[in-house]
């Protein structure tokens, strides 16, 4: 840390310089008055620094925070790890660049895990930009690190289909009703790995990376619940995760919630398949837990400060009154 501060003194200097006006304000007006009249843009600035500094520190030093996989991350990992080479797996990438920060690390880890297990990967998307996310992941993982995997034999991109949950409803019984070609325009019957595949029920596992509607909820409702033999695991955004926890474990065998879930799953994949010197692109989730820690500490601190301020003001407002205090309470509301 000391070496980092000495080498990167200019970042520290900018950080201190931006906060000098805030300190001067507190010094002149007093801490309580300064907090009471604090411009919200100072909080934005503090949040920026709380995210930027850890990213810079981790980016320069290469260090990441330790991560202990939870039972849910382990269940997700085990669902893929129990499969045998050649088993068909459907990967539905239902997200877009707006959620890439949260979901791309888990999408990358899912594909690496499937590639290591030599599973047959069937990619699809219920979001219009999903095929691009599939292509990015395929380029980053399969084409870069698993060049022996052949398109059409080991993995295929079926592309995007509109229709939201209706798509799931149809392909669980007849995949060819909707998919006549893959994303490249090749006829389904000309793709070797599509031979004998007629419906999603033949998949050994469905992996859904979901940012909202349509996504994991629809896969649970129309893909997994009516067909208990179809196993479903998912990686979701933080906003969506609390809504799908009730489906675990019967309807949803594994769940990665937001970047924390991604980091835990990455840890399991890298520990098992990453080797002694893993490629940094498989550590994105672990790296992004640094800014999470500092930003969460800032938010907790702000909540405490705001509450102290609120109760102090409330007490001060009550003080002049000698009666029951009811009028002041009403005013306080």
């Amino acid at each position, binding site marked *: 840390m000391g070496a980092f501060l000495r080498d990167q003194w200019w970042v520290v200097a900018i950080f201190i310089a931006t906060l000098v006006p805030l300190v001067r304000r507190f010094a002149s007006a007093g801490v309580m008055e300064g907090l009471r009249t604090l411009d919200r843009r100072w909080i934005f600035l503090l949040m920026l620094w709380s995210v930027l500094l850890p990213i810079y520190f981790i980016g320069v030093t290469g260090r990441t925070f330790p991560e202990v996989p939870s039972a849910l991350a382990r269940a997700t990992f085990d669902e893929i790890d129990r499969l045998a080479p050649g088993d068909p797996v459907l990967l539905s990438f239902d997200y877009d660049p707006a959620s890439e920060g949260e979901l791309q690390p888990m999408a990358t880890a899912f594909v690496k895990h499937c590639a290591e297990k030599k599973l047959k990967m069937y990619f699809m998307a219920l979001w219009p930009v999903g095929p691009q996310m599939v292509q990015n992941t395929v*380029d980053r993982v399969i084409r870069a690190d698993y060049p022996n995997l052949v398109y059409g034999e080991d993995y295929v991109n079926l592309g995007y289909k509109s229709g939201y949950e209706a798509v799931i409803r149809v392909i669980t019984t007849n995949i060819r009703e909707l998919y006549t*070609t893959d994303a490249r325009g090749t006829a389904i019957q000309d793709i070797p790995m599509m031979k004998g595949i007629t419906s999603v029920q033949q998949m050994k596992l469905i992996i859904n990376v979901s940012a909202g509607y349509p996504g994991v909820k629809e896969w649970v409702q129309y893909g997994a619940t009516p067909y208990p033999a179809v196993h479903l695991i998912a990686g979701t955004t*933080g*906003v969506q995760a609390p809504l799908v926890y*009730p489906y675990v474990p019967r*309807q949803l065998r594994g769940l990665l919630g*937001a970047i924390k879930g991604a980091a835990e799953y990455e840890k399991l994949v890298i520990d098992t398949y990453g080797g002694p010197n893993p490629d940094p692109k498989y550590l994105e989730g672990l790296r992004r837990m640094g800014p999470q820690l500092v930003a969460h500490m800032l938010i907790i601190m702000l909540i405490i400060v705001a509450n102290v301020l609120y109760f102090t003001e409330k007490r001060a407002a009550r003080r002049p009154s000698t009666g029951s205090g009811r009028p002041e309470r009403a005013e306080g509301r």
Partner: protein
Amino acid sequence: MNRDQLIWIVLFAVGAAALLGRAVLTEQGMGREYIRQTVTPAGGTEFLPATYGDYVRAEQAQPGQTEYRFSRARTIGLWLAAFFTLAVFSFLYSDNPFYKVAESVLVGVSAGYWMVVGFWDVLVPNLIGRLWPSMVQAWAMPGLAGAEAQRNLWYIVPLVLGVMLLWRLAPRGTWIARWPLSFIVGTFAGLQLIGFLHGDFLAQIRNTILPLAVFEAGAFDFWASVRNLLIVGGVLCAVTYFFFSFEHKGAVGRVAKVGIWFLMITFGAAFGYTVMGRIALLAIRIEFLLDDWLWLIDPSRRRAVSMLLQGIWG
């Protein structure tokens, strides 16, 4: 000149000077994109994303090589992305023309993208390709073959419904659009009713019927029992809070109050997850600015050949 204008001018001046200094005065520069030219199995040319490190290594191995090269188009895209990122962030200080431009471009590009995707991924394969397969095969989808290449006249029905839906834009007879709209609403209502009944209502009741004393291999599992007790107790208390046939007094009121606590903890967890999600989104934009654009950090070792970080990364 007011205070806001002064702040903007200072920010622009400092930012521009820093960018210029970094781009011109440093050895590695910043914000450049590279590509790799490859040949596809079909004999075509394909351009794949490459890194500055790939380019330098290829130049060291064979000076003047043409496989890896600087990409002007991608570099312009990178700088535009950086500009729009900063323009959107600038709204946090105050509303300004840069933010307005970024907002308008985003809305316009999204609308255009949706229209193009809707045409090529929905209308062409799902409607035109079903009604005029040979034309679509010759024009847009050479892979269309077999049973899918046969004309299916049933698709006249969605064509007619689609035209009726667009009738809403006509000056007269807008009521015609209500028929396909009612068809869409009815279909989705029916589909969702089944989905929610099966996937949520019944399945969630099933998921709540849990043993309160869990035994694993004949031994009492304390923590699993506590978990099940919390799930069953939490559901019953929360449901009691929404049960208005009895006044929330006495025992019912106390149970409902516990239900409120369960709901509040749930909302708190949801808020925490939302915060985590938003910070992750902010983190990736800052990573983009520091890594892809400014080349200040290199966590993925993409420029490890010439960066100062080489020694640190090993």
